């Protein structure tokens, strides 16, 4: 049979299956020159590996180590209680999965009540949010989204996107939202037939995919203010897609009742 140089190389590199190897062994017994060729391939491999082994001994520059260690620092903060930590981790994962687009662009201004009107613009605010003596409520557009949209099935180009759904400490169901048209985000809880806005943040917002050129790190996916507000009020873990769909069917009534 034909013994090619490539076959000898593969033999030397341990790349042959047992049958091919046996064939080469036979050929080498008949022709010692083939054996010398295999030895030469192995010698070259050893020489190369040995010559470049010294490069592994050099000290690693700190900045390279730092790249990795800095990345480690963006992990969620340690929390003493294990179950809380688990819930918080799940929450963070859900938020990342949802990929809140307002991220870094969100100005960290927290607006409540009347302040909304000034910042968002009186007219827009009236349709977006509604104030009453009982507090701040979602206007028709946001309320419609909160009542009917499922986070898992909404259009990425929807004007209002819904994020997490969770139960608060009072047992009410709450949902986070981002109104792209009004540059407004926050979360609201279901009270009777209304959505009471617990927190609203103003900021330039963009829909997923509209952000350009910005490097988005994991931690910047959601406004830290909103995240910590949700964390402060959440009871247990956010609803998964199934529970969210069930809650919709149940018209967002408090799960305990």
């Amino acid at each position, binding site marked *: 049979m034909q013994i090619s140089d490539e076959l000898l190389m593969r033999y030397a*590199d341990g*790349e042959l299956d047992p049958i091919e190897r046996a064939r080469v062994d036979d050929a080498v017994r008949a022709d010692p020159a083939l054996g010398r060729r295999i030895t030469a*391939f192995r010698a070259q491999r050893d020489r190369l*590996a040995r010559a470049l082994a010294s490069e592994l*001994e050099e000290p*690693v520059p700190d900045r*390279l180590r730092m790249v990795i260690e800095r*990345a480690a620092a963006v*992990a969620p903060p340690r929390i003493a209680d294990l179950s809380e930590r688990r819930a918080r981790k799940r929450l963070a994962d859900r938020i990342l999965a949802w990929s809140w687009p307002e991220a870094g662009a969100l100005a960290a201004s927290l607006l409540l009540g009347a302040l909304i009107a000034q910042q968002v613009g009186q007219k827009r605010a009236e349709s977006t949010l509604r104030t009453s003596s009982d507090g701040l409520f979602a206007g028709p557009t946001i309320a419609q989204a909160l009542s009917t949209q499922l986070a898992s099935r909404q259009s990425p180009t929807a004007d209002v996107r819904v994020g997490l759904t969770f139960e608060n400490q009072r047992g009410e169901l709450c949902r986070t939202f981002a109104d792209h048209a009004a540059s407004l985000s926050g979360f609201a809880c279901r009270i009777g037939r209304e959505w009471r806005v617990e927190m609203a943040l103003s900021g330039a917002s963009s829909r997923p995919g509209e952000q350009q050129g910005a490097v988005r*790190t994991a931690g910047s996916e959601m406004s830290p203010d909103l995240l910590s507000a949700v964390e402060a009020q959440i009871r247990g873990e956010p609803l998964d897609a199934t529970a969210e769909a069930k809650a919709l069917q149940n018209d967002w009534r408090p799960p305990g009742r």
Partner: protein
Amino acid sequence: MDDSERIKRELVELIPRLRRFARSLTRDVADADDLVQLALEKALGRLDQWQRGTRLDSWMFTIVRNTWLDELRSRSRRGEFGPLDEQHEPAAVDAARTEDTLAIQQALGRLPEEQRSCLMLVLVEGLSYQEAASALGIPIGTLTSRLARGRDALQAVLGTEAG
């Protein structure tokens, strides 16, 4: 999170090998470190794309090399010289290196990148043909023939210098 902590530890351990591979590409120590840094940043940003159960080193070699090829493309767009310009003294600065290290580095440096990367991954980094082919995004037959040509060329260069 524990999983990604473990991967990060493994990445730290990989740094020396990544630098070595990067140097074979850039042929410049400082460029190589920049390249490794860039590749690590990329990798950390998409750890979810690494398939558990596959070799992390192979995955990193791929990222290092693709990052380098991107860099070369943008350098040539900017009208800058590639890595073969004379402004940088190739890795020869380290006096601790043995003579043979230098000879091998220079000989490797004369090979086309596609052959050099095959030699580095298989002969130096110890990847199997299949693993190296996957890391380079080429069929195993292509890898085998590049490896064969690279070995011949290396031998020719080293032979000339010895003689």
